[in-house]
């Protein structure tokens, strides 16, 4: 509610500055979303939604916050009451933030349930059906707990460190799609952005550990710094290899290629997208690289067996030993958001994004005879496929955590520098040669030629 009041306020002020009606009309014509001059009475949101679903034109990334949400907002703005860019920004933030929170709540709950069932227990049962609201209760409780800043802590750093960690994770959601057309902003340098902004999280963790003025936290900090910086490298090489094969940094573009000709026949994809067009099967090195990426991503988001920074039996609680209440909850949220994030990136770059890998299913809602229903259905299927792939990977992360022991610091460095790095470099070189020799053919011999 507040969001719309807020947006309307800005829209009113915006009206004085500029002839918004003209702008909206021009924009809608450009996007082909709304007929000029059509006034949507009531049900504004849904009208815009339907209008946008009916549109078949691909949304390009010309505006900073272009893409689905902004397209939607533009169509809403056709009546001149909503200032599109700001609205798009707010909704984007809202959607991403909301998703992160809801996901984290769900993931914490499912982690507890998954672990419980693996351990012959039941897990949370009392709050809500099967303890569904357990995490909500935990979160609200943490909100109302006393917020302690130790006397000897570096107060400003201590206070902002959780926010930095959380922002570092949240920012990486910006170029990440949730499904076809559902993206906050399709950055041209999407993968690069994800890799680069990852460093912010390390910074936050270091700030937290240092500012706590606690020796255990300090230990965790040093471990985190070594771990996250080292594992950036195999991840980076995996990114580079994918970029090299796809010829694009953009996550949308990478996914689209794996789906073939479905939505963008005019972009030069002439093949039908099946499972073997996923990047994972693009050449014989890709599966290995996928595993390397997955292992490195476990370390990147501090999950077992690489949970050294918060190793409970060694470092009490790691870098957040001194944190209580909401600040601790932010670390918690960030951890689970990062879990989803690395899984989603793996889905995008290796597992075909929102493509189910079955051509007829992927083709749902495309083509000239698509109706509003098939289009909606197709969109939902794509979102569902994407999320379920990502959640499956998150489940594997949980599974690993509750099965494997933790490794030691020197072994972790060994795994990174002497195992993962050489393997990923080999895969990189191999992929280069493969692309060179085969001209971009997949391992099954089907051509993937991007013009």
């Amino acid at each position: 509610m507040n969001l719309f009041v807020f947006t309307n306020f800005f829209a009113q002020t915006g009206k004085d500055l500029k002839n918004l009606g003209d702008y909206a009309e021009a924009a809608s014509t450009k996007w082909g979303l709304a007929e000029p001059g059509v006034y949507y009475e009531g049900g504004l949101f849904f009208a815009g939604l339907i209008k946008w679903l009916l549109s078949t034109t691909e949304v390009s990334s010309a505006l900073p916050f272009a893409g689905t949400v902004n397209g939607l907002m533009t169509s809403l703005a056709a009546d001149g009451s909503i200032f599109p860019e700001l609205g798009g920004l707010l909704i984007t933030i809202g959607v991403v933030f909301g998703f992160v929170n809801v996901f984290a709540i769900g993931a914490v709950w499912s982690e507890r349930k998954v672990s419980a069932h693996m351990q012959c227990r039941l897990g949370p049962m009392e709050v809500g059906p099967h303890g569904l609201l357990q995490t909500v209760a935990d979160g609200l409780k943490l909100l109302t707990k006393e917020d302690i800043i130790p006397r000897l802590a570096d107060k400003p750093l201590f206070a902002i460190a959780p926010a930095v960690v959380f922002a570092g994770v949240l920012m990486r959601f910006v170029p990440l799609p949730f499904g076809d057309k559902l993206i906050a902003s399709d950055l041209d340098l999407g993968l690069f952005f994800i890799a680069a902004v990852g460093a912010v999280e390390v910074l936050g963790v270091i700030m937290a550990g240092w500012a706590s003025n606690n020796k255990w936290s300090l230990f965790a900090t040093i471990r985190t710094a070594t771990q996250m910086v080292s594992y950036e490298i195999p991840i980076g090489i995996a990114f580079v290899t994918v970029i090299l094969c796809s010829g694009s940094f953009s996550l949308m573009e990478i996914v689209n290629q794996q789906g073939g000709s479905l939505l963008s026949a005019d972009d030069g994809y002439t093949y039908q997208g099946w499972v073997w067009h996923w990047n994972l099967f693009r050449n014989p090195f890709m599966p290995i690289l996928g595993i390397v990426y997955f292992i490195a991503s476990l370390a990147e988001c501090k999950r077992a067996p690489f949970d050294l920074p918060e190793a409970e039996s060694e470092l009490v609680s790691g870098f957040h030993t001194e944190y209580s209440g909401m600040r601790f909850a932010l670390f918690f949220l960030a951890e689970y958001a990062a879990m989803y994030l690395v899984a989603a990136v793996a889905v995008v770059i290796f597992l075909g994004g929102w493509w189910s890998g079955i051509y007829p299913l992927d083709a749902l809602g495309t083509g000239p005879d698509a109706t509003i229903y098939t289009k909606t259905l197709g969109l939902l299927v794509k979102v569902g496929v994407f999320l379920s792939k990502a959640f499956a990977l998150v489940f594997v992360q949980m599974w690993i955590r509750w099965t494997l022991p933790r490794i030691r610091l020197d072994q972790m460095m060994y795994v990174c520098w002497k195992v993962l790095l050489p393997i990923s470099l080999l895969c990189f070189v191999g992929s280069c040669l493969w692309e060179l020799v085969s001209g971009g053919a997949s391992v099954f011999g089907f051509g993937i030629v991007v013009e």
Partner: protein
Amino acid sequence: MNEIENRNPDPLTKNVIFMSAIDDVINATRANSVWPLTFGLACCAIEMMATGAAKYDLDRFGSGPFRGTPRQSDLMIVAGTVTHKMAPRVKRLYDQMPEPKYVIAMGGCVIRGGPYVKHGYHVVKGVDLLIPVDVYIPGCPPRPEALLEGLFKVQKLMKREKILDRTRRTTKPEVYQPV
């Protein structure tokens, strides 16, 4: 209405119905997410672990995450004998916990020294000489069911809290200052 207002002289809590609704929600969340501190001292700690483990499963009631650090815990289960050497540490750990915090004294030793009350020169005769205790669970060691019952008692106490009424905590005696 007068009657209720008389019972709540605090001007902040004048809006009784609204505040009690908020109290109910917050207390419900607190009561259903009691994170205990991993604070095993002796035999009772094994029963505490057993309560958290497969058969009794403390996690069902939202108390699963045993936190290693006092900063993130709501409940201190003092499980085992407290000795004079340990006493300052117990006090410090209690002080490090954020409000609202609760203490369960688990087992005979923690309540009044247990079997060591007479000859145990080095045993603190009851942890309530050090820190305020909310719930006592007798037994040597208490069964896991008894610990669960103690947890429910703590939950009941939590549900009686008033968010703006801080008297309960401040009236708790400062029983012990480490010398």
